[in-house]
């Protein structure tokens, strides 16, 4: 378990995900190495009480686990409730700001594609086992914290074809094209009362692959980022980033 300073502005490639095979290992590994290198200076500079900081860091980890667990179960409305007022989410080249927009992201976009289910990394895209699982940095005033957490999830989009096959698949809760996506959650949290809320969450993508659980192979795929903002795209972001 490590409590460290977060990386600020790390990753020159944040807007240009490398979709090549094994890129997940290389890039995530490099980022995490940088974080670990800075960890040792964290406490001495801030003077944060170690026990309190650990408690807050654990609370942030729990918050993130809860976020992933709710996404995994498709509890999208409950996910929306985990964000602070005026929070931001960056996903797939789009910025969603404020509760209304965040609800649009999760309760429309994510829900329609059953996005967020935790799945194992695609074959050939596994993260470096040597890298830290997560990194949390609690601010000196213990009112904010930042974190980095690797993620590996299913992403989907409803099939748009109007065939009977697609309509029937929809009726049994499917009719969705699914793929795998892995990367890092860059999270900024804020303490609201005694509990933590998410103030900013960025999906920092590393790789996407045409993988679904059960397959023995995967290849990198290129999924277009958001190209329109809301309302031109009814489930789109407020801003392209």
């Amino acid at each position, binding site marked *: 378990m490590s409590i460290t300073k977060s990386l600020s502005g790390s990753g020159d490639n944040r807007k240009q995900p490398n979709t090549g095979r094994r890129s997940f290992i290389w890039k995530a590994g490099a980022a995490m190495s940088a974080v670990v290198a800075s960890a040792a200076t964290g406490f001495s500079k801030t003077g944060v009480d170690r026990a309190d900081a650990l408690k807050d860091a654990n609370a942030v980890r729990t918050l993130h686990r809860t976020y992933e667990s709710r996404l995994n179960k498709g509890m999208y409305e409950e996910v929306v409730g985990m964000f602070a007022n005026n929070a931001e989410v960056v996903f797939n080249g789009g910025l969603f700001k404020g509760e209304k927009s965040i609800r649009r992201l999760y309760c429309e976009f994510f829900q329609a594609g059953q996005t967020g289910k935790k799945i194992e990394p695609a074959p050939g895209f596994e993260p470096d086992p040597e890298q830290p699982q997560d990194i949390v940095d609690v601010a000196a005033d213990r009112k904010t914290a930042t974190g980095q957490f690797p993620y590996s999830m299913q992403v989907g989009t409803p099939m748009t074809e109007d065939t009977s096959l697609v309509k*029937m698949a929809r009726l049994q809760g499917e009719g969705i094209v699914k793929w795998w996506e892995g990367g890092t959650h860059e999270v900024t949290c804020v303490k609201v009362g005694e509990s933590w809320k998410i103030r900013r969450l960025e999906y920092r993508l590393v790789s996407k692959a045409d993988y679904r659980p059960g397959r023995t192979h995967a290849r990198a795929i290129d999924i277009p980022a958001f190209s329109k903002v809301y309302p031109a795209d009814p489930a789109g972001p407020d801003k392209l980033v």
Partner: protein
Amino acid sequence: MYQPMNIPMHRFKYTKLTKEQIGQELAATAAGPKCVSGLSDALAGKSLKIVTKDGPVLNYSFKDKNNLTLSENGGAAIEAGYGALTLKQMVFFSHMIPGTQKGYNVFVDLDTDLVTVFEVWFSSGKQEGGGGFLGGEPYTLDDREVQRQIYYGYVEVPGKEAPEQLHHATNRIEGKGMYWKQDTGIETLEYYASVISSNWVELTRQNDDLAFCSPSDYVLVNDNMFIYDRTECEFAGIFTLFVADLFTETQVGVRLGFNHLDELEYYMFRGEGKVVGQLAYLEPFDDHGITPMGAQSKTPNAIPEKGQRTAYRPVRSFRHLTDEEVHQAAIKTTNAFGGRGDASPMDMSMSMAGNNMPFTDMLVGREFTVRYDNGGPVWQYKFMDKFMLKYKEEKETEWREATYRAYEGDEKLVWFAHILLDSKPRASVAIAVDLLNGLTTCIYSHMGTPYYGNETTYRALFGVAEGEGFAAPRYMRHEFTDELVGHAFSWSYSDSMTSMHLYSSPHSMSWTIFTGNQTMGMQWGSPCLYVKLRDGVYIFCQNEEACNGAEMIELINTKISHDCGFSYSGGAGGVNLGLVGAIGRHIGSFDVKEYFGPRVAGKGA
């Protein structure tokens, strides 16, 4: 007993019976169901307290073999007529509750004291659709459609603990096919090729050998006995329920609902049958289907409403267009093979042609004439390049230029299609030409049926090709065939889209949608035709009649388990001749050909 239907169910206009009309007719059920074979007195003089999980507690006292009293959840006793039948250790009884539109059908296993209860009711007033998983515009279910809710439970025995294991849903019947003949003389072929649906052919009630699909449930009693139901949703709404023993291939059951003549049917039956085959089911080996495939709720994560089932109701959201409306749309847009040639990999992975066979250039530079029998069309062709051809009718002087796509469906067997330019109604042809013998079959398709404009009509034309290199026979032709009947193939059009085709009768087929773990789920069916081109090579053509009106025109090559072909459809957005192709897996077959063919109406097989 029956006046057989000569209008297929999917074309029949069933009366929208009102709640009041249904109530009046149901008064007759107060006396209980009849049975040609006679009812059982197995329960006479007995009392049962049935406790169900998440359902009612039912206290029954059986006065004799026709009368019972029931207390639901400790309420006042209700008197009702009932009927009972036994099958081995199973006692099945059925009754309605007088003055209401609901009743119970109860299966009691005397060996285990386990019970499965089917509560049934009419006039649900239930709204479906309205967005979410349940589809577009809201609609209200027909009052005549029998609703059902299944409860699993047990007979409470003083001093005996409640059993931990109850009857449950199963996938072990999935893929099985059975022929049944009831004591009423009614014969059916039933294909249980899904865990939530079934496909059946009425051999007595219908004059056509057409298969239809309906929502169904499957409950496992033990290794050799199961309970099955089907509700003919979007047709008569009638309900059939039975328990079957696979060792003896016998059944006892009940039929409840209103038939196509709006007559109330409420009778119990015995039947004898035969297992006609078994398809493979493809879910993981450690998945026994014990947890039923959940029906969708209106909103995610909500508990489905009582009686909710997964039913395909395509007509509810279909906008019918006139012939002229479709033709005006076709004038604006008639698309052939557009949008897929340069599609992105993700588009292809979602499409109906992601696994298609390659196009062939084997026709480039060739010229020939196809001449179809009995005064059929005669077209002359010149193939300019891989995607463009010129054609004209024999009597015409001007050539027309059209885009086409061609496959080599088997060795030197070419299969190509194009739009018939400026045709009204808009038409297309898909033509197989056997370059080794000069035989040709054309699937001639055009927009519009006697029912509505945005549904296609198709027919097969048989003939010969003439030209350099051809020496076609004078009498021999490609022919309609039943060689595929009873067989099932999964067809993977792309990595995201697979369905199973069951060639259910000589004139119909069904398609089944797989779930995420490859359990077979929703089904629907349509009429179709089959033509034999060569051994193992066929044309299969179906139109999703009274559904979305779209046509699939495929060459199936069973030697390579692949198909390739075309789709043809039209609507407000214009007319489209598209591409379809899939990798197949042979899932199995049913030995059913003996049941089909011309026969005396209403006499069964």
